[in-house]
């Protein structure tokens, strides 16, 4: 018998353990401990095996924690934003209908009436030195301080973390009107390292305060300074009021008594960030789904590692059993080992996950700010995440590894020939998986016609994502079997016959990789298609040469000036107010629903030619200018299932005597999450809405009659006009600049998605690498057998490579329809239903090619490396290796 030890140092160790064994009483626990010690000795001699398992777990947890920390932090930011007390108000008094500000006197009335639980706020965008925009928030600091004190008792539970007090601020300076603004330390370090900031041409002192105040990227100032900077003297943006929920009716009657009627200010209840949470849900879901995917792929690496290390210990385990260690003890020891590895791996992953989230957060902050206007607070983290990660990893790892352990301990002590039976069992599992997948896909197909809502679409996406990988093992089997008759006897025949046997050990890894590849391809397709759609849409939307958005009090003069400018060939206007749209009561809408919308109007030319209509009534343009016919944006139409011809009511139309209007058209509004409605100018005037436009656009004459102005001329003209009209860089934009900015913004918005997507692909590549590497390592003996029969090393290399190539190529081939299907669902269901943007799907060959290239390179490396190692040791050693 070949009694060669398996792990070089185990005999001595075993002997020592045996000696101790006689001294101690025979207990089950001791046996477990003994086995565990042997395992640790094993890993000491094979650190790479332990390393692979740890790497897998750590990678999985890193991505899980990284995204979780980022997401939790964002969600916490919305609901817990201390970013100005005002955001946590229970009630807001906002400007009355068709106005952008409200009168300061309302606030004085409130305070005089003893309603001290209120806070006046002005806010707005303000331009900095390089045409950069800042969000400036001004509020009554004294009121804020007293409120902060009284509120901090009431809401201690939301601020279990250190809640900084405003007392540390240099109040005297702030209150006596010194030009001083406050911002969070991290922002100040970035933009005002010298403690000075230039806003609207005035230089301001900057006070940096702790990030925990939750200012995010906003700039805070006392109300008088802010009014001055924003040119809003005597005006307010809103008043925040604090009140218990049950006191609200009382508060309302109090306001009525004070004469604060809807003509002076509108009353609206706040939801403490709930709306934002709902709005961004799909965004977070998206991130979560991707992190879960990466987590699963990471765990496959760990699973592979466990599998390999078990295979390497097969004889060792049999020896332990033969020496009289109970199976139960052995099992416990294996479990213990796994738990140990999971705890260590998860802890490593936890640390790097926090690091990752640190790195992702600015990106997420950017996206959330671009899309939803939400500010993010600096990162926090909790120990519970670590425990959650450990628990989740442990459950997943135990679930995956338990069958392996059971197989192993059930193994006959006599070195049995049960491999053949195992093979048969695998075949059966694969066909069951295939049947299950077919069932799931059938369910998905049946569900498809009903996937009108976002939630069902998500379920649909989930089912497809689970079902398709389950198809893979059986398809691989069929694929290889189909090649069998083509193979000449000898090496080719062997190659295919063995490939068929490799499907079982490789299938899990390949399923994970299929999923990662498909996700990658589909996400890239989504982003690529979106970008293309956005570009074409911008092309239609933007027709004028320059777009001007001057401060509201100067728009009149600028408009007149431009109208008389001989260089101008066309002048276009846009009017805008905030309004409420109500849907009629119907069967699926039992109570009347009011939706806040932006109500817009444009000049006739712009409306007719740049509206990018998705669908419209055939008689739209005949009726649009002389009847109450409106255009609604696609997101609005999709969110509330509005159809052409539907009748809705707009509060802003009250003055016309009839607030009802017919939807005459639905227009694309890509990249905009707000609800928009456009009405014609005659209707706007009839409703007595503000006559001054909010923005202007102008086209200019070129050199020749009727030609457009050239790019270079336009730049010159823009600079010229800016000085002539007294506009800052931030107030005048050329068409090209808007386009580049829109695309840049779009790219930033999706950067987090793309980064996560690439990370998942990297994890998948590492997974593929570890799977191929370990499999090739595990096949040293069969390869050595071939070598001993006279197959040259080059032929062997080519053969192993071909085998992996067959498996990887079939997987990649399946990734194409899967990626297309997932992409289709992402574009035509998820994005459409979550955001209301119709996107034309463009298949991204480049992304697909890149994914395949990565897969192939990885697997080539993973195959060649072990074969190279093998050439450096005697053939006999390889012949005696354990096999799968």
């Amino acid at each position, binding site marked *: 018998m*070949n009694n060669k030890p398996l792990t*070089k140092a185990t005999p001595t160790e075993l002997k020592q353990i045996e000696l101790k064994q006689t001294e101690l009483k025979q207990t089950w626990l001791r046996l477990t401990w003994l086995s565990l010690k042997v395992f640790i000795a094993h890993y000491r001699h094979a650190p790479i095996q332990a390393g692979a398992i740890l790497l897998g777990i750590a990678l999985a947890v890193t991505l899980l924690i990284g995204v979780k920390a980022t997401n939790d932090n964002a969600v916490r930011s919305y609901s817990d934003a201390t970013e100005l007390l005002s955001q946590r108000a229970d009630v807001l008094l906002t400007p009355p209908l068709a106005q952008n500000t409200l009168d300061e006197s309302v606030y004085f009335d409130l305070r005089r009436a003893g309603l001290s639980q209120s806070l006046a706020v002005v806010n707005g965008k303000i331009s900095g030195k390089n045409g950069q925009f800042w969000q400036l928030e001004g509020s009554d600091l004294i009121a804020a301080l007293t409120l902060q004190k009284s509120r901090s008792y009431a809401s201690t539970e939301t601020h279990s973390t250190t809640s900084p007090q405003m007392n540390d601020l240099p109040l005297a300076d702030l209150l006596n009107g010194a030009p001083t603004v406050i911002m969070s330390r991290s922002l100040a370090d970035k933009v005002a390292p010298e403690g000075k900031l230039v806003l609207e041409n005035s230089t301001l002192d900057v006070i940096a305060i702790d990030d925990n105040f939750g200012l995010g990227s906003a700039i805070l100032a006392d109300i008088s300074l802010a009014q001055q900077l924003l040119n809003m003297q005597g005006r307010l943006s809103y008043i925040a009021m604090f009140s218990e929920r049950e006191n609200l009716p009382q508060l309302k009657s109090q306001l009525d008594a004070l004469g604060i009627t809807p003509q002076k200010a509108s009353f609206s209840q706040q939801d403490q960030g709930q709306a934002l949470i709902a709005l961004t849900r799909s965004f977070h879901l998206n991130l979560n789904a991707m992190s879960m995917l990466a987590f699963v792929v990471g765990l496959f690496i760990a699973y592979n590692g466990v599998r390999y290390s078990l295979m390497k210990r097969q004889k060792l385990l049999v020896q332990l059993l033969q020496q009289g260690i109970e199976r139960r003890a052995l099992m416990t020891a294996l479990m213990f080992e796994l738990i140990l590895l999971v705890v260590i791996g998860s802890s490593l992953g936890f640390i790097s996950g926090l690091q990752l989230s640190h790195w992702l957060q600015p990106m997420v902050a950017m996206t959330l700010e671009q899309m939803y206007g939400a500010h993010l607070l600096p990162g926090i983290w909790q120990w519970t995440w670590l425990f959650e990660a450990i628990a989740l990893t442990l459950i997943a790892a135990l679930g995956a590894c338990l069958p392996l352990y059971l197989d192993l301990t059930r193994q006959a002590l006599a070195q049995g*020939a049960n*491999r*053949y039976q195992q*093979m048969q069992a695998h075949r059966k599992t694969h066909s069951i998986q295939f049947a299950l997948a077919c069932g799931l896909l059938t369910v998905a197909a049946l569900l498809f016609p009903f996937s009108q809502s976002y939630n069902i679409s998500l379920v649909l996406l989930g089912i497809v994502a689970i079902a398709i990988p389950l198809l893979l093992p059986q398809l691989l089997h069929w694929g290889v079997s189909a090649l069998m008759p083509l193979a*000449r*006897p*000898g*090496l080719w*025949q*062997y190659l295919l*016959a*063995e490939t*068929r*046997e490799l499907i079982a050990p490789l299938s899990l890894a390949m399923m994970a990789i299929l999923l990662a590849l498909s996700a990658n391809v589909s996400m890239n397709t989504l982003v690529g298609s979106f970008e293309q759609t956005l570009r074409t849409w911008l092309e239609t939307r933007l027709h004028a040469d320059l777009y001007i958005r001057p401060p509201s009090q100067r728009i009149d003069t600028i408009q007149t000036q431009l109208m008389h400018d001989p260089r101008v060939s066309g002048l276009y206007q846009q009017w805008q107010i905030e309004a409420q749209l109500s849907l009629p009561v119907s069967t699926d809408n039992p109570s009347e629903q009011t939706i806040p919308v932006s109500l817009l109007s444009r000049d006739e030319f712009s409306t007719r030619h740049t509206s990018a209509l998705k669908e419209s009534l055939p008689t739209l343009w005949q009726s649009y200018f002389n009847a109450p016919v409106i255009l609604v944006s696609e997101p609005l139409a999709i969110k509330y299932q509005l159809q052409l011809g539907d009748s809705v009511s707009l509060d802003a139309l009250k003055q016309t005597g009839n607030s009802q209007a017919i939807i005459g058209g639905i227009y694309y509004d890509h990249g905009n999450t707000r609800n928009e409605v456009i009405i014609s100018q005659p209707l706007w005037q009839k409703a007595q809405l503000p006559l001054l436009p909010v923005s202007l656009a102008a086209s200019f004459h070129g050199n020749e009659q009727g030609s457009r102005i050239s790019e270079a001329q336009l730049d010159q003209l823009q600079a010229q006009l800016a000085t002539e009209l007294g506009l800052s860089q931030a107030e005048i934009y050329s068409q090209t600049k808007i386009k580049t900015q829109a695309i840049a913004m779009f790219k930033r918005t999706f950067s987090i998605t793309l980064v996560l997507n690439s990370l998942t692909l990297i994890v998948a590549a590492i997974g593929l690498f570890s799977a191929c590497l370990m499999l090739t390592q595990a096949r040293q*003996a*069969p390869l050595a*057998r*071939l*070598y*001993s*029969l*006279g*197959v*040259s*090393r*080059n*032929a062997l290399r080519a053969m192993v490579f071909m085998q992996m190539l067959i498996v990887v190529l079939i997987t990649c081939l399946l990734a194409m329809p899967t990626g297309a299907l997932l992409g289709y669902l992402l574009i035509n269901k998820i994005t459409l239903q979550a955001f209301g943007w119709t996107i034309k799907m463009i298949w991204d060959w480049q992304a697909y090619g890149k994914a395949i290239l990565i897969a192939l390179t990885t697997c080539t490396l993973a195959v060649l490396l072990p074969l190279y190692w093998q050439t450096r040791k*005697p*053939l*006999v050693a390889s*012949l005696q290796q354990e*096999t799968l």
Partner: protein
Amino acid sequence: MADVAKPNPVAKLNQVSKGFRDGEQYHQVLQAVNLQIHRGETVALTGPSGSGKSTLLNLIAGFETPDSGEILLEQASTSTWQDKEWSRFRRDSLGVVFQQFNLLTPLNVKDNIAFSLSLTAQPWSPWCDYLVEKLGLLPLLHRPVEALSGGQQQRVAIARALAHKPTLLLADEPTGNLDDVSGKQVMALLCELARESQTSILMVTHSEECAAFMQKRWHLSQGAVAIYEQ
């Protein structure tokens, strides 16, 4: 005089030494061994367990490299052989029966036997049918090799080693797992092969009975070889 009649040794060992390092310890297994085996010659290799019999076979097959000395195969020195030469020799001239069978698990019995044939692009021959019949493999031909018993696997391994009529057959206890009757059959088969196709056979065995079938006997002990003519 025997050497004059058979001037071409198929395998020749000149001062071959081989030892292994086990951690700190080094132990010599073969010490300056000189041996040669001629065309059609059959040799039984005996010796106590651990004496280096398998090591000797591994050296001749190129599965291990000698620490010093030279091995000549078909009159060519192997010291400069690379992968290509070794592979060609193994394909064309060598048959091996291992102590632990080393069958190709993905293939069935017939394909295992045909494998060495197909490597040299030879078709299935009447000789193969004869082998299959003699070794009692006919009912097993289409079974997967893993589902076979130890003795059955051993017979497949023998059939595979003989199928392409190698010039040199190295067998490590080929009858270890067989009952007396099949053991004798295998020995008869080996002798027949040696006679008919001038195959040289080097066979490790612990059994006196099997050793008796061979023309010569080499006895290994303490790193040296004693040669007995029978």
